[in-house]
């Protein structure tokens, strides 16, 4: 299908690349279908583009790039809801906020979890004080450099 996007103009999306979020995302509940978009310039940031409202797109990143020791348990209810059979099928992305002025932050408290076998996903909420909703990327990346 051909879709309008927030940052990449008109884009052709394969039907098998459409990601389904039954409950939308917290705060953006009326967006249920998404696609991941990126290009050479944007990477490692991907844009989580709503297919229901073209102007809605959230920057997301592989959290392990910026926080190599990031770890959490997926609640059993979510494992069941997404029909996750094995951990290898799980793809994790975390939402960034890129303000016009000021540093980029990452939401480590609410990872987006996608089952790549059926393209179903959910943003899960970790009630773990270790992980902030608004962690500055600049505080994480020096550690990432040390770790790798």
């Amino acid at each position, binding site marked *: 299908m051909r879709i309008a996007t927030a940052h990449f103009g008109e884009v052709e999306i394969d039907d098998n690349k459409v990601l389904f979020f039954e409950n939308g995302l917290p705060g953006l509940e009326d967006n249920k279908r998404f696609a991941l978009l990126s290009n050479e310039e944007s990477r490692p940031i991907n844009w989580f583009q709503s297919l229901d409202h073209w102007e809605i*797109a959230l920057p997301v990143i592989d959290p392990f790039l910026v926080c190599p020791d990031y770890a959490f348990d997926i609640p059993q209810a979510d494992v069941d809801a997404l029909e996750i059979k094995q951990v290898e099928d799980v793809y994790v992305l975390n939402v960034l906020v890129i303000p016009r002025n000021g540093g980029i932050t990452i939401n480590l408290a609410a990872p987006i979890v996608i089952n790549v076998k059926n393209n179903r996903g959910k943003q899960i909420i970790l009630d773990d004080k270790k992980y902030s909703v608004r962690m500055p990327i600049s505080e994480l990346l020096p550690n990432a450099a040390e770790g790798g």
Partner: protein
Amino acid sequence: MLVLTRKSNECILVGDNIKVTVIGIEGDRVKLGIEAPQNIRVIREELLMEIENENRMAARSEYRPLPRGEER
């Protein structure tokens, strides 16, 4: 909305398998113990509100690559 009064160490039961115990009261703080099955999500409301707010802010993000300074 059901409104109940409970004292310290008293409980309320929600459905067949959720139990909320008032563990202690100190000034304006109430400490609760919540026993619920694993498939019931229990979170503080303000955490959900923060995440809703953060997602809406993310959707207003500026399109720009990671600045070099932050890509060290």
